[in-house]
């Protein structure tokens, strides 16, 4: 870290906070215990700004900005909770629930699902959008883990953790738009892919799309907290 630190001061939800230059709004908010809902962001992975749940308002600009990829500047005034933002967040969650087949009651991640938690937290009581009910496969070819595309929200955390942390880059995205899907290698069965069986992707998956076969029926909490620690230890080396 450089010795001279460029400090920025800004307002988040009326609270005066200071930040280092180059930090994102989300990072600064977290440091100051200001909650911004996120789904694709995970501490320890690069940010892609894909879920759009962390959008915030910045004074002087009518556009909305994703907090996870927007850098702070001096004198910035950020608002994280407004009626407009809440409405968009709810609609985005609705879109996710209607996109594939999310059936919490029989899902292995029930009670430990970030999508479910966000729905509850944001007050999503029902989905008005027509359910798309796509017919999607389940890849159970792996010895230890299963990928259920029905529960995938395309956050690409698995893709990033596999490429950035494990260095294997087994996961990637195939297709485009509503038809895009997570694939292993060049669309091989997971069990036949170059997977190193480290299980990081399972731990970072926010829903029950990636799960441990032996956890069926039991509680299946995910432990993505290993990431920042792992990164810290690697930096120290």
């Amino acid at each position, binding site marked *: 870290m450089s010795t001279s630190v460029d400090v920025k001061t800004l307002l988040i939800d009326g609270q005066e906070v200071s930040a280092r230059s180059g930090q994102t709004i989300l990072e600064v908010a977290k440091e100051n215990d200001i909650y911004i809902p996120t789904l694709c962001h995970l501490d320890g992975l690069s940010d892609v700004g894909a879920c759009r749940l962390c959008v915030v308002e910045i004074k002087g600009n009518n556009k909305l900005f994703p907090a996870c990829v927007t850098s702070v500047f001096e004198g910035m005034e950020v608002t994280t909770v407004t009626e407009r933002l809440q409405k968009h967040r709810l609609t985005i969650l609705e879109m996710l629930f209607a996109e594939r087949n999310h059936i919490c*009651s*029989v899902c*292995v991640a029930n009670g430990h699902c970030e999508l479910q938690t966000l729905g509850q937290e944001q007050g999503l009581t029902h989905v008005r959008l027509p359910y798309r009910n796509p017919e999607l*496969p*389940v*890849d*159970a*070819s792996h*010895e230890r883990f*299963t990928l*259920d595309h029905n529960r995938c929200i395309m956050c690409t955390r698995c893709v990033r953790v596999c490429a950035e942390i494990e260095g294997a880059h087994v996961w990637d995205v195939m297709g485009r738009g509503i038809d895009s899907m997570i694939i292993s290698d060049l669309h091989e069965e997971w*069990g036949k892919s170059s997977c190193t069986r480290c299980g990081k992707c399972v731990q970072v998956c926010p829903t029950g799309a990636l799960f441990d*076969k*032996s956890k*069926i*029926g*039991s509680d299946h909490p995910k432990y993505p907290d290993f990431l920042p620690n792992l990164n810290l230890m690697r930096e120290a080396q």
Partner: protein
Amino acid sequence: MSQTITIDPVTRLEGHGKITIHLNDQGEVENANFHVTQVRGFEKFSEGRPFYEMPSLMARICGICPVSHLIASAKACEAIMSVRIPHTAAQLRRMLNLAQMVQSHALSFFYLSSPDLLLGMESDPQTRHIFGVVGAKPELGRAGIALRRFGQHIIELLGNKRIHPGWVVPGGVTEPLASAKRDEILGMIPEAYANIELALRWYKQIAETFAPEIEVFANFASLYMGLINEDESIEFTDGALRLMGARGEIVADGITAAQFPEVIGEAVEPYSYTKFAYYKPLGYPDGSYRVGPLARLNIAKSMGTPMADGELSLFKQISDDGPVQSSFYYHYARLIDILHGIEKIEMILSDPLILDKHVRATAGVNRLEGAGQAEAPRGTLHHHYKVDENGLITWANLVIATGQNNNAMNKGVLQAAKHYVKDGKFTEGILNRVEAVVRTFDPCLSCSTHAFGQMPLAISLVSAEGEVVDRVVR
């Protein structure tokens, strides 16, 4: 002019069904059918799902007997895995199944049927429900509610959830029994004994007054089927199936889940979404049989528990030769089942290995096909799956108890209707008796939605031309 009487929906049943009674030109009952009017599609939409997810998926078929589906499904999965589950897991599951049997029987006997038995078949439909029972005989109503809670609470203690517990998994159960929970269950047992004894005493007092109903409530010769242990004692969770003939002769014995499809066939009738199971060597409909409490008690030589054994010998005295025939005795058999359940739960809890920590076996796909069977409260339940190499379901078939009792229910409805409906005339009390025949079987109409209290009942008299001649609504 020929007419059709429709009872839709049939009340105080688990699920939706209707009864049609067809009258000929002379106003005599020509035919009667019990229809199950819903299609669920579980066998179809489970295709493509991992087999280890099946117990929790299949449990959603029913909110009353999810445990039976959990157990039959888990056993089918274990056949696919080719594993034997640890002793403690088997005992814990047995206890869970018995607890569910107690609560479901309590629901059937006290909530659904005791209004007819206590208040009378002809009583005012406005008060003919569990609250009417509580008003007229509070101790009986309380006993029923307490027994249901007893069963439900054990399920909750074991499975952490009263309905659809995720605790039963392929290979065993997810967590062992804690000693505090064991002690809590043991503490509930004395009260349960007192309640079931009260109910049995009361039943014996009133049973004689129902002699006319006993005579025509599905009172005919049939085959009986149920699970039995090697020592010929009653079994709900393991063991093998026995098929008994109308004179008490053993028709088939030792039928395992894997053999079930060879022995039992399923016929389809156009008027119902439920299939009609039959014993293949005798064909359909001659091979129709009954399952459930009555069938189980007819088949078993003993209950394996002292107090229930005493009751079983009294039960066996009802019929001088061979099995007890009238479905009215399902009620009595149900109470004996409850007594047995409480005794057996107490026995299981004294097993020195019951707190053992080894409760789950793990394995992958070692066979591409598997079947499992268990006794649901209302009769034998059979799950049969086929999977691909990765363990994804490619085919599933479920044979539920209600399908196996289907022919007997239809015959019973016809028998009662023929006896009671004369000259095309009927009263609400008569139709209630026709419904009560179905209630004795406690069918679960493959449905998990239940109306609270009394559902509206509409009876229409329809002429042969389809014209509604008369209509009674309550």
